[in-house]
């Protein structure tokens, strides 16, 4: 019998994501878990992290998590309230290090679908919102982070629709499409593992398994073939101080970590 971990999978995901953000970096975030991760980083290891929101909010002192990426909390006591173009163009000229994206489906190259499920574009089984800013941010920021639940419905061989480019179909494909060189998916953090991308093939590779998770669990929840690091690591458990800040200051009402 294993002793219950002193944290939830969602807490582990947020802490792992927060730990990847260096001090002094610029990051465009959405609402929910990515916003929690950025706030946590800001309160712990990266006090000089600049948060940006796609509708124009820059450098807020977030009193609570926003519900819309355009609501007034995204520039609450902020440094600037600007336009959507200004944010996207700051990404396009190479100043933004990270963004966080999600989606209904992700494939081995980190391409994302947030547009539709089904075979017929005109008559989809489910219509999702579409790109919003995702395709822009996934094209123009240096490093794309994905936080998502891990299951076979999401981790698919073939997307029903490619909304946002990851590495498209392999090395050089982003550059061939005219996207800025040297950009692309960086980490995929799920409730089971942390994954990166293989330098040569640009395919998703398991870098660390969360405590008490086997590689078989990850593979059983992934439709495509995953690469794996030669020496598989175990995802670092969040230090108690980090968890404490997450619970007390970042998400005291447990909107995100209570899931």
């Amino acid at each position, binding site marked *: 019998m294993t002793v219950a971990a002193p944290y939830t999978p969602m807490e582990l995901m947020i802490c792992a994501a927060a730990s990847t953000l260096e001090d002094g970096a610029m990051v465009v975030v959405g609402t*929910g878990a990515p916003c929690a991760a950025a706030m946590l980083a800001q309160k712990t290891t990266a006090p000089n992290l600049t948060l940006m929101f796609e509708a124009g909010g820059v450098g807020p002192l977030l009193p609570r998590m926003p519900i819309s990426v355009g609501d007034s909390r995204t520039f609450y006591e902020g440094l600037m309230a600007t336009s959507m173009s200004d944010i996207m163009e700051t990404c396009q000229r190479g100043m933004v290090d990270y963004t966080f994206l999600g989606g209904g489906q992700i494939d081995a190259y980190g391409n994302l679908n947030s547009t539709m499920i089904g075979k017929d574009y005109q008559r989809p089984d489910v219509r999702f*919102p579409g790109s919003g800013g995702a395709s822009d941010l996934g094209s123009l920021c240096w490093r794309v982070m994905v936080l998502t639940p891990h299951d076979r419905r999401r981790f698919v061989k073939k997307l029903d629709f490619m909304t946002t480019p990851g590495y498209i179909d392999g090395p050089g494909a982003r550059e061939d499409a005219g996207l800025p060189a040297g950009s692309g998916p960086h980490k995929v953090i799920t409730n089971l593992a942390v994954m990166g991308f293989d330098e040569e093939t640009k395919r998703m590779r398991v870098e660390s398994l969360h405590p008490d998770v086997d590689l078989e669990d990850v593979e059983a929840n992934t439709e495509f073939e995953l690469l794996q690091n030669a020496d598989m690591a175990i995802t670092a458990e969040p230090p108690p101080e980090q968890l404490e800040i997450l619970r007390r200051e970042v998400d005291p009402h447990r909107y995100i970590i209570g899931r």
Partner: protein
Amino acid sequence: MSNERSKASSGPLFREPDCDEARAWFRSKPKEMTDKTMSVKEAVSRFVNDGDYLSPGGFGGDRIATAVFHEIVRQKKQDLAFAGHTATHDFQILCAGNQTGRGQLLKQVDIAYIVGLEARGLSPHARRVVESGEIELCEWTNYTLSLRLQAAAMGVPFLPVRGFAGTDTFTRSAAGRVTCPYTQQDISVVPALWPDVAVIHVHDADCYGNCRIRGTSVADYYLARASKRLIVSCEKLISNEEIRRDPTSTIIPFYCVDAVCHVPFGSYPGNMPYEYYSDEEHLREWLSVERERAAHLSFLQRLIFDTQGFDEYFELNGGKNRIEELRRQELQPEEENDEIPHDE
């Protein structure tokens, strides 16, 4: 152009980017400083025509012109094209003009973001409307739709963008590819978009249409300049002297504006920065009644179709008392303990 373009993408281009046609329109637009204040009813009946291309300001549920969207539905406007440029609650309102026995309000939609209300979830009725196949769709992104308005505001036929390509989003758009004459590299371009009519909610306007916005401007700087006609609704009607005391704060000049409608709390149930937060309870009610057609229809009947205007809708939802609570949430967010949904 369309032959070249079709090699890259296959989505429908709802309006051709004709700079000279736009120049002729803007030349003939009345530019006198005249009093343009009028009721929302009059503004919609004069400046929104069947078949128009309509573009909303704000950000879906943030600083939106709710009163004007309700009136467009109430007046049964038909066959509109629409720029879904992070359209959330505004799109949800307009969808009430489709599949509710009132003809077809929306006919064509340029999509960056529709159907969803961000963290609040997907709108069941907007899904019904879009999934039925009755609307012609073209895919874009938030930036590329904004860039299309920027090109129109500049008076040029297209603008380049480094993102966007390599995806189905691009293939289902009406974007093009050109070779850069300087670097010899291929780059994506998006066509200018001159909406027939735009609807923007602002903090302050004078009677001539000089406007101020506090907080993020989203795409409204370009949208105001790109649109052939512009209906502005405002929280406060201020004097021209006040505008002149601080011209730096004017983001939309009078010569872009056709109608000024004074609608206090006019973004409700959306957020209005520095004024009131979004009414999450009411937005949840919208989403929940939409699950069942009969409940949805009687909800629309009671709150929109059978009401005389926005004031009545506002009162039915708690009016000033409700706004006091939302103002508190807006101005003192740290003290709040509402049950707001949170998601990516």
